[in-house]
């Protein structure tokens, strides 16, 4: 069984939802990334999304744009990212790692060369934001041959017909983009997400992750109540950015955020005001 499948099966058995933090590899410098991956797992992450830095990240808000710029100042390349995954696997053989990025670095490396190297490094999934299934045929074929799951996006604008088509191509899990906008946006509508997830579930048994706009423990909890996995990107990257000048503080800052999210998600839907009791935010 693939790591992604095993991970979701174990969570389901415990009646828990997956927490998937995202960090840009090499941000703010390459030495930070692998230790941070381990810290995120200890803080409650079930899967990890590792961003491959790109010069022109079209779907990202300012937070992840700047993360890409910081990582590229150190020249962090796709091959460097694969080396980081490989190093992570020395001591962690169970937590799934998904690479998230844009097509061009994969195009230039070559599909087959990438797939072979990624499988060797211990990568479990690939999500390329600018690669809809219509363009993905050749890449999906080589990924599936090395048992790397192609992770596809679904969006609020995706028609029912396309949802069916994309779910037929997808494996691992599908990723629902919770809003019309870029990463880090602030207009998340959980009721609308819930309605769309019901529509998607009619077409697939795969777990559904939801990302974009999940900023804190409260939104993580509300989304976890309706989805199978919660993807947290900009909120994590903000913790990295705030400590970019003193990287030794990054692990603690990220761990604190993820612990809060983990506790809130595992506590279930907000019924009894426990959130205020735990964190005193009055929400």
């Amino acid at each position, binding site marked *: 069984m693939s790591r992604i499948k095993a991970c979701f099966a174990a969570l389901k058995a415990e009646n828990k939802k997956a927490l998937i933090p995202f960090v840009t590899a090499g941000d703010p410098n390459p030495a930070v990334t692998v230790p941070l991956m381990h810290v995120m797992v200890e803080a409650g992450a079930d899967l990890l999304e590792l961003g491959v830095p*790109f*010069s*022109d*990240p*079209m*779907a*990202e*808000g*300012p937070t992840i*744009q*700047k993360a890409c*710029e910081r990582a*590229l100042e150190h*020249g962090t*390349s*796709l*091959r460097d990212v694969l080396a980081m995954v490989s190093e992570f696997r020395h001591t962690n053989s169970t937590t799934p790692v998904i690479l998230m990025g*844009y*097509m*061009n*670095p*994969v*195009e*230039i*490396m070559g599909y087959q060369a990438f797939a072979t190297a990624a499988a060797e490094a211990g990568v479990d999934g690939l999500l390329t*934001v*600018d*690669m*809809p299934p*219509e*363009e993905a045929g050749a890449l999906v074929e080589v990924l599936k041959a090395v048992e790397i799951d192609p992770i*596809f*996006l*679904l*969006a*609020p*604008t*995706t*028609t029912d017909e*396309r949802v069916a088509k*994309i779910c037929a191509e997808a494996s691992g899990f599908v990723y629902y*983009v919770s809003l*019309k*906008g*870029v990463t880090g*946006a602030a207009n998340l509508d959980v009721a609308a997400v819930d309605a769309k997830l019901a529509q998607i579930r009619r077409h697939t048994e795969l777990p559904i992750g939801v990302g974009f706009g999940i900023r804190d423990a409260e939104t993580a909890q509300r989304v976890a109540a309706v989805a199978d996995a919660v993807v947290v990107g900009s909120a994590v990257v903000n913790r990295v950015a705030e400590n970019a000048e003193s990287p030794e503080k990054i692990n603690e800052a990220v761990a604190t955020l993820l612990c809060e999210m983990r506790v809130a998600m595992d506590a279930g839907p907000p019924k009894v005001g426990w959130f205020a009791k735990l964190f005193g935010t009055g929400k």
Partner: protein
Amino acid sequence: MSSEVADLPDASGHFGVYGGRFVAETLIEPLDELTAAYERLKNDAGFQAELDRDLADYVGRPSPLYFAERWSNMLGGAKIYLKREDLNHTGAHKVNNTIGQALLAKHLGKTRIIAETGAGQHGVASATVAARLGLECVVYMGAEDVKRQALNVYRMKLLGATVVPVESGSKTLKDALNEAMRDWVTNVDNTFYIIGTVAGPHPYPMLVRDFQAIIGREAKQQIMAAEGRLPDALIACVGGGSNAIGLFHPFIEDSDVAMYGVEAAGDGIDTPRHAAPLCAGRPGVLHGNRTYLVEDDNGQIIETHSISAGLDYPGVGPEHAWLKDIGRANYVAVNDDEALKAFHDLTKIEGIMPALESSHALAYAAKLAPTMRKDQTIIVNLSGRGDKDIHTVAGLEGITV
């Protein structure tokens, strides 16, 4: 040349392996909507009549085909004709496309227009049509370009547009395009994105080409009237490539007509400072399409350089990538100094001040014409006028205007 070449792209937007639709999932549905609307309207007599009327009465078409006799004689070879897109309203070919896309926006019921711009010509052309239709207009422009093109920034503001300086990445045209895409994905319900060149996700390379092909259709009729036969060569500058494809496309099946797309070599294509993806780049995926790019070994896009802001872009339209690979068009590059000389020559010899973009095409014509016979003809697309570049040229000569 078979009609199959002229019939591209295919239904999914591909020119061979190039083009396509490499965008985030959220944009697929609006791109499908745009494709369907365009397919419906391009054969709609009412829409075409409205477009033709705007092109005639508002843009001022047809633009003349002018025989540059004195310059031709001085070069001592082929007769050079200039397709005078510089005489269009707003001073360049860009308006042919923005008029068309603004009509599409109106028919789709969109109330807000966004555009990206490098030199500012496409931004001005977009702000112009938005003003005329009473649509809100937001133009994204790299912060570096905002500094370099202050005149066009002010023109856009006078036209009622909001100009947003883009501070990310290299702060130039490619980053403006990224930011426009981000706006579109956020405001997709009420917003129409007017892309300024024959690049981006399908259907943009096709529909921008179709709107610009008026250049080549007119030129064909005009050269037949003047010379009684087709030209021997076409020359146009290529940044994204919209003026070039507009001139080339109606001639694609005329295999005796040679085509030359002229890229910006900046300091030279053997230096790191150029903007010539077809001459010195390689294929990749950026801004929604697969095409030739200026990029490094890791697939990161490299900052480009050209004296001409309108050619300062690391990609190129996918149809050009295809025409290069099948050998139907030739792609060459001209450096900053050569373009600047052509700018001065045409100004002094013909009394026509060309844009620095168009000056690249003229510089190549000055190389090609002397190698041809005097009874042969060349059409150069004079894609824009040079008023916007006076500050740049004066600055190079140490003069403050």
